């Protein structure tokens, strides 16, 4: 069973429908014991870092995700806001996040060389696989994935990055460490390529 963490925001059902399409059973839940009991955990999302952290805290899930999932070696996938929450701190709302991967989350610049940059980034962008990882099995390098984001992660240790993309500036698009994996792009909205990555995650043994 895969637990999809319900933090009272965002479109969680789209991730569940993608899993269903792929034939993987999942459950949307905000209960610690269900998350602890799950084989894998997905933290999906659309939302703001501040509000999301507040909701996770109110639900008592911060320690669960950090200690009982990430540090306990359970396969853990963060999507979109889920990648940002993995780091120590976000500029968005200036909040402390889960601190599972050392680093911070910053906003895209408002302009590049005097030309305004449209923020949020909304649309399909190429993803370079900067470090080989099993989750990319069968997915060609430089495939487009669907992004909706105003902020992006900067891990302290650049080797945590497994993929990068460019939006005015180069940015980290996916990170991985042991059992923890996260993408800035929406796997559930990225067509066949997104489904393939999601399927690969569901089959990874950590």
């Amino acid at each position, binding site marked *: 069973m895969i637990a999809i963490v319900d933090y009272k925001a965002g479109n969680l059902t789209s991730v569940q429908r993608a899993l269903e399409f792929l034939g993987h059973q999942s459950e949307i839940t905000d209960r610690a014991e269900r998350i602890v009991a799950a084989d894998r955990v997905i933290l999906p999302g659309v939302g703001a870092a501040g509000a999301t952290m507040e909701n996770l805290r109110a639900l008592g899930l911060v320690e669960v995700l950090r200690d009982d999932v990430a540090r306990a070696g359970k396969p853990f996938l963060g999507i979109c806001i889920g990648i940002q929450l993995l780091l120590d701190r976000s500029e968005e709302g200036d909040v402390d996040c889960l601190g599972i991967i050392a680093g911070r989350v910053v906003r895209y610049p408002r302009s590049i060389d005097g030309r305004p940059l449209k923020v949020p980034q909304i649309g399909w962008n190429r993803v370079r696989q900067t470090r080989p990882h099993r989750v990319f099995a069968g*997915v060609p390098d430089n495939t*487009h994935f669907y992004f909706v984001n105003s902020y992006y992660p900067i891990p302290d240790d650049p080797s945590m990055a497994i993929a990068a993309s460019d939006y005015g500036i180069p940015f980290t698009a996916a990170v991985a460490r042991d059992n923890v994996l996260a993408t800035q792009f929406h796997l559930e909205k990225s067509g066949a390529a997104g*489904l393939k990555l999601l399927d690969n995650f569901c089959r990874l043994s950590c």
Partner: protein
Amino acid sequence: MLAKRIIPCLDVRDGKVTKGVRFLKNVDVGDPVAMARYYYNEGADEIVFYDITASNERRGIMLDVVRAVAREIFIPFSVGGGLRTLEDMRSVLLAGAEKVSIDSGAVRNPALISEGARAFGSQCVVLSMQVKKTGARPDVPTGYEVVIDGGRRPTGRDALAWSLEGERLGAGELCINSIDRDGTKLGYDLEITRRISEAVSIPVIASGGAGEPAHLRDAFTIGLADAAIVASIVHYGEHPIPALKSYLKRNGVEIRDAVTLDLTPP
């Protein structure tokens, strides 16, 4: 670099696709789910459904369509047409749409934009507007006026001013539909698309008038649009999406190459 998006538009009335989509073999062209599946497999970057169902009692049918589409289409899709309240928006999003497109409802009640953005996030809220070239006058300095109710009713609002107001209120994207060009196949209205795109810092979607591949190229390179709505140009099979995409690529436009991958278990 972000790819320019091609967005097929399907008009749906009482759960059926209208506006003669009639070329496809083995596809029930009246079935919005089958059509969405077809365009998804063709490499559409997004899909938009406009619900033109007249009676309120039959609006639930569209939600069933949205639910069915969401089960098998894994790219973003939006739903517009007749959304007047926050609850209308919520039910479409809960049914599985990625975005809602609001139009006349937002003109009548601009707070719908800000309330929608607050409740669901700006990325969910597309402010769509029908614009008509009326000539410049004091209340419409660009010469492009926003019209509502299928183009029948002028609003006295300038298209550029309304775009800026929409962005300020929290719209995540703007869709600019030229009522003059709609259905003409003469190309998008590049002038107003460009003026708005240069003035706002959110994505702009060009709509109305695509008849030739070059019209899409121009929307992106001259109109500075981030995305383009296509209807009859793809519905009649003359210019399938893969052909449009290769044309645009040859012309130096950044486009998403759709990949087909084997998703069967190893």
